Every structure is written in C-alpha cells, then in structure tokens.
C-alpha cells in the first residue's frame, strides 16, 4: 500500500466517523462563502453601476450674462486650466429656450407668453473619463463656481453624494464581512478538526506508538480541510449563482434594478474564492493537528 492510498483510506474513515460535525463545518463554510460572495457581488455591481452613471456626468455652469465670443474663449481657457475636458459647450439663452421647448414637446405652448431669454445662458462641461471620482467632481465644481460670471453649478451633487457614501459603506461592509467570515470559517474548521482529534485521541496515540509518521497522521486531516474548503466554496458559490439567476430573471426589464445591469463574479474572482477557501480550511486543519503532534 502506498502512502496516498493509506491516507485516503484514513481520511475516508475520518469522514465516516465524524460525518455530523463535518456536515456542520461544511455548511458553515458554504454559508460564509455565500454571504461574503453575495456582498462582494452587490459591491462589484454597484461599482459597475456607478461607473456607468458617471459616464453621463456633466457639470452645468449657469452664467449671470451671456458671454461674448472673446469671453467664451477666456472661460474655455480657464476651464481647461483646471484639467482637460471631454467637451465644453456654450448654451445661449435662445438655445436654452429652444431645448426646453423641445423637452416640453406637446406642452411647449405653455411657453408662449414667456420671453425667449428668460432662461440663463450656461456652459455644459463634460469632464474627462479619468475625472470621475466624487471628490474630483466636487473640486471641479468648486473651481467652476469661482469662474467670473458664474452664478451656480449643478451636477446632481446630492444624488452623487448619497451614491458615493453608499458605495463607501458597501466597501466597509464587504471588508468587514469578508474578515469576519474568513475568521469564522477558519475557526470552525480548526474547531471541528480539534473535536475529531479529541474524539480519536486514543487511535492517534496508538498510530504514533505503532510507528505512523507525522505525515501519515497529519495528511488525512489536511485532506479533510481541503475537501471542506473546496466543497463549501463550490456549494456557496453555486447557491449565489442560483440567487443571481433568480434576481436576473425576476427583476429584468424596465425599473430601478435594471439600472444595475447585473453581472456575476468574474471567473478569476470565483477561482480565487475557491482557492482562498481551500487555503483557509487547510490552515485551520494544520494548526489543530500540529498542536496534537507536538504533544
């Protein structure tokens, strides 16, 4: 009998004898992976949505007066002094009126009695794609407010601010849940293996007395850790994928959730979660069995 056949037999025996506690650990690992991966999935989708929304960001600088050509060039220079932009458009009072009338469509007759210059002139600034962070937009907006003739700058700051803080909160939740769940899974596996070792103390002691090497005793427990990490992460991720499919099917179509364009985790992230789970569970096993072997 070679080493691997012997340790696989031993691992199979361990699993048969301690199936109840193994099942509990397996469920804990699955649940930990499911919860963490769920938060991570929400996080990546929120970041994705944030990126898509930021593509539509434009800052509108309302002006006190309609600038002349020379003034327009000066303002253009000043704006580009802060940073390069994707596009800068000057909207005259007449253009603003025309655009508003088009937006009103059939109801544009409500403007019939209004003077054609009642809307202020403005500058539409579309920042570069690299300049999409909330703080950068805020700084840019503050700069634009200080431009001569600027009355007010609008870019949906309230909404952006809320969304920014939401993503910040989500980042903290993902990091905290990740850390806590990693600790939970590792300790659960270590605890189960420790219980197994305590329950089979006599047998392990005997194995040492009849000449079993430390590898012979240790390897079946490491295999258990690998199996728990692998199966736990696969089941957790499969459950998450099922949940993802259910949400995609039931919440597709027009609506708020459609804004998010749900996508599942990247294959590299899935593989990383499986490997990290295997690594942590194996580490839990290793620390427990090492304590026994040192006795």
């Amino acid at each position, binding site marked *: *009998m*070679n*080493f691997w056949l*012997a340790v696989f*037999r031993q691992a199979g025996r361990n699993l048969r004898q301690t199936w109840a506690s193994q099942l509990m650990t397996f469920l804990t690992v699955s649940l930990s992976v499911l919860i963490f991966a769920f938060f991570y999935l929400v996080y990546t989708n929120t970041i994705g949505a944030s990126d898509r929304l930021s593509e539509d960001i434009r800052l509108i600088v309302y002006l006190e007066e309609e600038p002349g050509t020379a003034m327009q060039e000066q303002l253009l220079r000043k704006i580009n002094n802060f940073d390069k932009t994707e596009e800068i458009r000057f909207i005259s009072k007449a253009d603003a009126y025309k655009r508003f009338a088009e937006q009103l469509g059939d109801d544009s007759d409500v403007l019939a009695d209004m003077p054609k210059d009642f809307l202020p002139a403005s500058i539409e600034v579309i920042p570069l794609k690299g300049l999409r962070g909330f703080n950068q937009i805020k700084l840019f907006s503050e700069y634009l407010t200080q431009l001569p003739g600027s009355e007010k700058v609008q870019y949906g700051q309230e909404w952006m601010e809320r969304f920014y803080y939401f993503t910040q909160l989500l980042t903290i939740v993902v990091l905290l849940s990740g850390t806590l769940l990693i600790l939970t899974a590792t300790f659960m596996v270590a605890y189960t293996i420790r219980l197994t070792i305590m329950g089979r103390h*006599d*047998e392990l*002691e*005997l*194995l*040492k*007395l*009849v*000449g*079993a*090497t*430390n*590898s*012979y005793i240790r390897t079946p427990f490491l295999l258990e850790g690998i199996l728990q990490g692998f199966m736990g992460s696969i089941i957790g991720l499969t459950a998450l994928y099922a949940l993802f499919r259910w949400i995609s099917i039931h919440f597709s179509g027009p609506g708020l959730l459609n804004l998010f364009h749900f996508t599942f985790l990247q294959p590299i992230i899935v593989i990383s979660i499986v490997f990290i789970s295997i690594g942590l569970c194996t580490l839990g096993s290793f620390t427990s069995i090492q304590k026994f072997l040192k006795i």
Partner: protein
Amino acid sequence: METDNPIEALEVPENTMIEMIKVSRTYVPDITALSDISLTVDTGEMFFLIGRSGAGKTTLLKLICNMEVPSNGLIEVAGYNINNLKGKRLAHLRQKIGVAYQDFKLLDDRTVAENVAIAMEVSYKNPQAIRQTVRDLLEQLQLTDKHNTITGELSRGEQQRVALARAVANSPRLILVDEPTGNLDANTTERVMNLLNRRNKSGATIVIATHDPTIYQKGNHRILELRDGQIHSLTRSNGS
C-alpha cells in the same frame, strides 16, 4: 554502532539489542518507579521480567519503546539512543518494535482484523499481504471466527490475543509483551507462547513481563526479577 537509519540498525544483526545503563524513572512528586537499572538484552534472546505488581516491569517496557522518557540514564536499542530520536526516525524505529500493552490499547469500535492490520498499514504494506497476515495470525491464536467482530465486544482474553497479534503482525525485530497470558487458559497460553517462540526462532528479540512462572520456567532463558524498582536478581531458567 550507530547508523543514520534506525531501521537499518535493526536489520543488521547486532549482538546487543537493548542496552540500559543506570536508568531511573521518577514520577512527580517523588515516586521512584525504577532506580539504577543496568541491563543488556542480546539480539535474538527471549528475556523475562518478573516481579510483583508495582515492581516496575511495565515502566521498564515503556522506557524501551520510548513511550516514556527516563529521568536518568541511557537506553539504546540496536545501538541507537532511543531518547534522541524524533519525527520520522522515531516512527521508523517503532515500526520495527512490536508492543503488546497490558491495557491492550485496542480500538474498541474497530473489528479485530482492522486492529491487527493497523500496525502493517503504517508501514504501507500491500493490502493483500496485510489480509493474509491477519488471517494467519488470527488462526494461530484461535481467533479466526472473530475476524469481523468489533473488538469492544470481545472477552479480555480475546482482546489480549488481538493485542499480541498486532504486536507481531509487522514482523518486528523486537517484541515487548506485558503480561501476555494473564487472562488466558492453559491451552491458549501454550498457543501464545508457541507464537512467541516461533518469532524468537526466526530472529526476533523478545522481552516478556509476566507473573506466570509456567511460561518463564520452560526453556533456557534469562530472568530479571525487579523489586521496588530495583534489580533483585538476574537468573537463568533451566526448565525443559
């Protein structure tokens, strides 16, 4: 002679299998189990330890197989200081020492066959060879019908024989046996001793701790009597 490999050391025919020099074992707080024991057991010898309960026989056997560490003194097995061995080297040496413990140390939830096989499994023996050896040993010890019986369901006499079968299963070069016939009738005692004698004739060194004069008075063996942890006498039996 010391070699790097303890297994090789046991395979090489040495004149001395066990050497103990001024060995003592004291338990906390102040109980002396063995005091100043010096003895030599030759390779291929069948050696008997006798003495009343508490004389130190079991402690002596535990020291030889490194289950316990001496408080003082030197213990060499096959020229190897057994207390200096660790890890894989100690494991390999233990594979070549078969021990039948007084408390049997059987796995009560395993079958008789599994208990005997465990000593060979750790040496990665061929599964077919393991099955064959288990069958042969159980037959020699009249336990064939108990092959698949859970060990916890056996009588003490049967458990004792299973422990002995496990001790000799891996063809060890040194066999340590603690009270091998304590729970056995005369007929089974004879079978057990026949098995040990066969192993001894095939070259194994055997140390037996016993109360039973019927087994050490037969043959021509050295007998060490312990009293209160000290050597009281070292004699030679001259029975037939």
